[in-house]
């Protein structure tokens, strides 16, 4: 290696370090906060690695039965909204791609631009009128605002790239359109469905704004529950950080292990203007 190459290598690694450290340091600090007793969290200068780990912070969060309720609420809302979105969105993406009905994507674009709160006002009245407030149903339905456009958008893009020849051959052999979709198009589209599924799950899991309006004491999802912890325990940082980490941990793990799908989905959606 010439000196010039060595300098290039060092500056590259320096640049990488500069870019990645805000993320690494933030999440390490989050972990540190969650593992410290209040004495250490209130210390100045701050303690990075404490002498005694406060595993109790995690135990306390997990042991509260409310937290378990909220976890299942999140699971039901995200699970329900994602499953419904896949059921209607995958066939829709297929239909739109095959009809080349690109103008219909305008609706998705409008959905992308509209602030979430705008949906809340009319739907809040609707749910009130239907007497559904106090159950998880309103949240599952309103999370469709997030999940359905994601699934449709990604599936349009995916079905546009899958070959038509097999489907045409099956049609000529006398298969119905539904059979062609079910047995030819759908199996090929599995990677695309995986991308749509992962992104829908993450954005629904992370959603906060719908919950603060629609969720009651018993129907809170995890982000809302964590937010509500602030007002009660202003200065117990340890348990608060532990709860925050538990809430976002599933998403962080997905990000690391399904990075390829997430990147593919985000750039496809983004580059197409969604």
């Amino acid at each position, binding site marked *: 290696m010439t000196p010039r190459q060595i300098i290039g290598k060092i500056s*590259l690694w320096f640049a*990488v370090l500069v*870019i*990645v450290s805000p*993320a690494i340091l*933030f999440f390490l*600090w*989050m972990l540190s906060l969650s593992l410290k007793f209040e004495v250490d969290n209130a210390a*100045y200068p701050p303690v990075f690695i404490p002498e005694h780990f406060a595993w109790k912070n995690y135990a306390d969060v997990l042991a509260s039965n409310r937290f378990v309720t909220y976890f299942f609420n999140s699971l039901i809302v995200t699970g329900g909204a994602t499953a419904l979105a896949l059921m*209607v969105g995958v*066939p*829709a993406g*297929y*239909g*739109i791609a*095959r*009809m080349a*009905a690109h103008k*219909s994507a305008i*609706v998705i674009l409008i*959905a992308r*631009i509209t*602030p979430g*709160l*705008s*949906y*809340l*006002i*009319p*739907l809040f*009245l609707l749910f009130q009128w239907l007497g559904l407030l106090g159950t998880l149903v309103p949240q599952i339905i309103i999370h*469709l*605002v997030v999940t*359905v456009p994601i699934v449709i958008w990604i599936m349009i893009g995916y079905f546009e790239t899958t070959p038509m020849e097999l489907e045409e051959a099956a*049609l000529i052999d006398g298969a119905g*359109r*539904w059979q062609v*979709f079910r047995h030819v198009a759908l199996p090929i589209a599995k990677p695309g469905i995986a991308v749509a599924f992962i992104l829908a799950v*993450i954005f629904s899991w992370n959603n*906060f*704004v719908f919950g603060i*309006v629609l969720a009651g004491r018993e129907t809170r999802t995890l*982000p809302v529950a*964590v*937010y509500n912890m602030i007002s009660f325990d202003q200065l117990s940082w340890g348990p*608060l950080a532990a709860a*925050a980490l538990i*809430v*976002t941990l599933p*998403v*962080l793990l997905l*990000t*690391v292990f399904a*990075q390829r799908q*997430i*990147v593919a989905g*985000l*750039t496809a959606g*983004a*580059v197409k203007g969604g």
Partner: protein
Amino acid sequence: MSALTQSTPAAAQSDAAPEKELRPPSYWPFVVPALIVVLAIIIFPWVFTIWMSLNEWKVGSPTTFVGFSNYLRLTGDPRFIEAVGHTLVYTVLSVVLPLVFGTFAAVVFHQKFAGRGFLRGIFIMPMMATPVAIALVWTMMFHPQLGVLNYLLSLVGIPAQLWVFHPATVIPSLVLVETWQWTPLVMLIVLGGLAAIPTEPYESAQIDGANLWQVFRFITLPLIMPFLFIAGMIRMIDAVKSFDVIFAITQGGPGSASETINLYLYSVAFVYYDLGYGSAIAVVFFLLIVLLAAVMLYARQRMLWTEIASDA
């Protein structure tokens, strides 16, 4: 149509059959369920919001049609006008900073180095993490006495700041969080653009002895412009609508120093339950986003024309 084909005599049927094959199959049945959902949760709320914005509509009291008076009320509402100002400042900063840092990060991630995939995964974590959860941790980091940020500043000799607890620094502090969170998205989009650039211009630049900055400024930057524009557009749409992080960290405070349109909309609709007025804000808010997008498109168009003009 199938019933008709069945009723024709056997001889005619053989003629009709290939014709049936050629007709493109109807895919409407695939779209109908999604169409119903979209009508119910996207179109219906929009139509209803526009209708509500023309009414005096408060929870618990009868509604009356008031025409455009909710919209007129907006023009004389100092809190709304202030919120528009906050939103614009917040948005401009939250578009420009991630664009600058994201482009730099993309250029770096475009190079080959060990552990690139894994580090890219770490790098995109901030934008995938649950916003409320990270907002909580940022709140702790912003704490004037116990926060780690003031400690870090003290290490380099900068006096302690009040961050989100002072009206003058609250918006820049929130922009810091937004930038930290969303630089990765810009990076991913620009990285996609870099991957599409041909290698020839770089080879000839090397022969001409161009330095790194010249290569970036005169070759890379023009070629990734379309991607930067898309990234900027998406960033704008998301920054204008930003809610979770601002709400969780400041609730629009101190006072109303960080109250953006979206937070004001929340207060009007779900704290004061003034749904008619809130709907008017929602409509104007949406139009503002569309207007900003149109301005960006126009600026891009202008830029393309001047580029062509300077080439000629």
